[in-house]
C-alpha cells in the first residue's frame, strides 16, 4: 500500500528535479508575480503628480504644502503656474490634480474663517480622484489644528484621521501592507492548480499511464503520488513569497509564522487537488492548462476578496465566492499577518478549507478513469 505510493512519489520527485527549466520557472514565477502585482497595483496610489499653486506664500501655506507632500502619496511636478494653464496641465498629464492655496490662506486661518483651499482634480479616473480628495481633506483638517491657538473653533474640530498609511484601510486596496498577504493567496492559488492539472494528463499523453494502470496501483495512490510532490514545491513557493514579500515590502507577520505555514499547506492542497480533478477528465495537456486557468484566474483574482470586498458583491457572486478556496485563505492570511489572529480565530475558515481538500481529493479519486477509453 504505502510502498506503491512511495514509489510513485519518488518517481514524480525525480522527474520534477530532472527538469531544471520547469523547476526554475515554477520557483521564479511566483517571485516575479509578487513584484509585478506588488508594484503594479500600488502604482496609482503613490507618487500622484500634483501641481501646487501657492498664492499665499506664507509660512502657514508652506507648512500646508509641506504636509501635503510629506508622504510619497504626491509627487510635485509643477509649481506656481497660472491657473489658466490647468487645462493644458491635465491634457498633457503633467499632473492629476492641482492644489490652489488662496492668497488669504494665512489670514483666513488666523481669523478662524475656513480657508478656501482649492483642489482641482482630473477626475477622468474617478478612483484616484476619490483618494486624492480624502487624503488632502484630512491633511488640510489636521493642518488646521496646529494653528488652533489662533482659532479655538478649529481646535475643537477633532482630527479624525492621522496621516499615515493606515488611514487608508479601506479593504483590499490601498497599501502594500494589505497587498502582500493577499498576493500570497492569489499567487499560490494561480500556480497550484496549474501544476497538477497537467501532471496526470501528461502520463496519458506519453503512454506511461497505460503501463501503470496494468498494475496493483490504485487510483488514490496515483493521485496522492502526484499531489504530494507538488505540495512540497508549492509550499517552498509559498514560503519564498511570504519571506520575500514580508521583508521587501515591509510587512511583518504579526501572528505565528508557524501557523501561517500550516494554513498555507491546507490551502495549497485545495489548489492541487482541484488541479488533479481537472487532470482526470481532460484529454490533452493544453486542455488541462486552459481549464485550470479558467477555473482559477478569475475567481481568485476577482471573487476572493483580493481586489473587491466580497460584501459589496451581488448575492450570486457571493455564493460563487464561497466556493473559492482563496476566499477563505485570504481571510486567514490577512488575519494572521495583519491582525495577529491565532488558531482559534481562523479555525472556521481553516475547517472549510480542510473540508474542501478532502472533498476535492475524494472527487479526483472517484473521477479517475481506470480504463483507456
Amino acid at each position, binding site marked *: 500500500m504505502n510502498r506503491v505510493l512511495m514509489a510513485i512519489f519518488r*518517481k514524480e520527485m*525525480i*522527474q520534477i528535479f*530532472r527538469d531544471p527549466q520547469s523547476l526554475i520557472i515554477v520557483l521564479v514565477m511566483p517571485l516575479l508575480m509578487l513584484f509585478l502585482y506588488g508594484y503594479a497595483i500600488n502604482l496609482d496610489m503613490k507618487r500622484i503628480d500634483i501641481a501646487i499653486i501657492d498664492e499665499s506664500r506664507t509660512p502657514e501655506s508652506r507648512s500646508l504644502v509641506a504636509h501635503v507632500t510629506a508622504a510619497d502619496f504626491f509627487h510635485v511636478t509643477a509649481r506656481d503656474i497660472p491657473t489658466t494653464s490647468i487645462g493644458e496641465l491635465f491634457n498633457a498629464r503633467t499632473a492629476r490634480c492641482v492644489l490652489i492655496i488662496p492668497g488669504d490662506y494665512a489670514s483666513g486661518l488666523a481669523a478662524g474663517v475656513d480657508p478656501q483651499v482649492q483642489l482641482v482634480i482630473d477626475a477622468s479616473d474617478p478612483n484616484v480622484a476619490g483618494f486624492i480628495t480624502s487624503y488632502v481633506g484630512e491633511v488640510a483638517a489636521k493642518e488646521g489644528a496646529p494653528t488652533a491657538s489662533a482659532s479655538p473653533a478649529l481646535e475643537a474640530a477633532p482630527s479624525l484621521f492621522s496621516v499615515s498609511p493606515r488611514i487608508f484601510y479601506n479593504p483590499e486596496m490601498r497599501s502594500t501592507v494589505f497587498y502582500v498577504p493577499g498576493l500570497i493567496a492569489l499567487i499560490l492559488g494561480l500556480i497550484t492548480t496549474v501544476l497538477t492539472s497537467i501532471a496526470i494528463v501528461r502520463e496519458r499523453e506519453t*503512454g506511461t499511464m497505460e503501463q501503470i494502470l*496494468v*498494475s*496493483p496501483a490504485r487510483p488514490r495512490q496515483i493521485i496522492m503520488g502526484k499531489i504530494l510532490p507538488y505540495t512540497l514545491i508549492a509550499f517552498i513557493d509559498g514560503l519564498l513569497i511570504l519571506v520575500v514579500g514580508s521583508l521587501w515590502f515591509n510587512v511583518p507577520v504579526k501572528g505565528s509564522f508557524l501557523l501561517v505555514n500550516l494554513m498555507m499547506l491546507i490551502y495549497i492542497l485545495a489548489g492541487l487537488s482541484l488541479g488533479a480533478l481537472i487532470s482526470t477528465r481532460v484529454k490533452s495537456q493544453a486542455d488541462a492548462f486552459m481549464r485550470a486557468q479558467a477555473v482559477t484566474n478569475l475567481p481568485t483574482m476577482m471573487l476572493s476578496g483580493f481586489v473587491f470586498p466580497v460584501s459589496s458583491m451581488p448575492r450570486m457572486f457571493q455564493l460563487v465566492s464561497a466556493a473559492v478556496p482563496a476566499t477563505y485563505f485570504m481571510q486567514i492570511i490577512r488575519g494572521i499577518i495583519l491582525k495577529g489572529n491565532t488558531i482559534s480565530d481562523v479555525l472556521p475558515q481553516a475547517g472549510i478549507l480542510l473540508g474542501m481538500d478532502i472533498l476535492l481529493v475524494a472527487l479526483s479519486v472517484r473521477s479517475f478513469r481506470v480504463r*483507456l*477509453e
Partner: protein
Amino acid sequence: MDPIVVRGLCKSYGKVQAVKDVSFSVTRGSIFGLIGPDGGGKTTLMRIIVSLLSFGSGEVFFQGRRVDREPDYVRAHVGYMPQRFSLYQDLTVEENLRFFGDLFEVPRAEVKARRERLYEFSGLAPFGTRRAGALSGGMKQKLALSCMLLHAPEVVVLDEPTFGVDPVSRADFWQILQSLRDQGITILVSTAYMDEALQCDRVALVYKGRILAADLPARLPDHFTDPLFLVDTDAPLAAYETISSSALCRECSLFGEGVHFTLAAGAAAEGVAELLKDRRASFRSIRPVPPGLEDLFLLLMKEEIL
C-alpha cells in the same frame, strides 16, 4: 482452463466494430501470435484482455477469472507491455526497474536478485545509470520487457514489442521470448511482421477486427488450397501487369522476387509462360512454390473484402 480464453468477443466504438466475434485461447507455456496490419484490432484485443478496455459482448478469461469482473486481479498478475514505449524517459534504467519493483510490491528479499538476473538476461547491466530516453530502440524494448518481468508474471501480453526496432534486435528479442516460453511462461504477442509468425507456437491472422485464420504457423499455409506458382523475374512490374489482366490467372500478387499467381480453371503454367514471352515481359522461370503466410493473408483479405 487455459490462461487466456476469449469467446465470442465483440467490441464497437459507436458504429465501427473494432472486434467482431473473436474467439481463441492461449495454452500454458506457449507463444500465441496475433499477426496483422495496423488498425486490424490487435491492440484493442490485447487491451481488452488486460482489462484496459470494456467490451460489448462475449467472455474473456484470465487465469480462469472473468476479466470484466476481476480487473484488479488481472492487473496485478499480468505482465503487460503496451505498444509505445511506456517507461519513464527521464528516469534511468535502474530507477525504472526500482519503480516497477515497488509498483508491483515485489518482495524485498527477492527484488534485488531478480533485478540482477534481468540485467544479465537483457544485457542492460552497463547502462544502469543511463536515462531510458537515451537508449536505442532495441534496448528500450528490453528494458520494458525487464520491468514487466520483475514481478514474475506467469502470463505475459506484449503489443508489437518489436515495432520500429532493427532486425538484429528483433531477432534477439524473439530469442528472449522463446526462452521465456521454455520457462513455462504463457505469452500473447502481436506483430505486423509476417516473418515473426514463424517464431510463434500458434498464430491468428487478424484483420478488421476478425480472426481470418488460426493454426500452427507451419500448418497455416495449408489453408491455401490452390497450387501456387512463382514467376521468377527481375522485372516484376511487367510480369504483373501482363498476368493480372489475363484470364489465365485467378489470383495474382506482386512480390519482390516476382509474381505469385494461381491458375484459373483449365489454364496451365505453360500458357502463362507463353503469354509473358509474347508480351516481352522478361522472366527467368515459372515454377511452383509453397504458399507462405503472406500469400494466405492476401487470399483471406480478398475474401474478407468481398
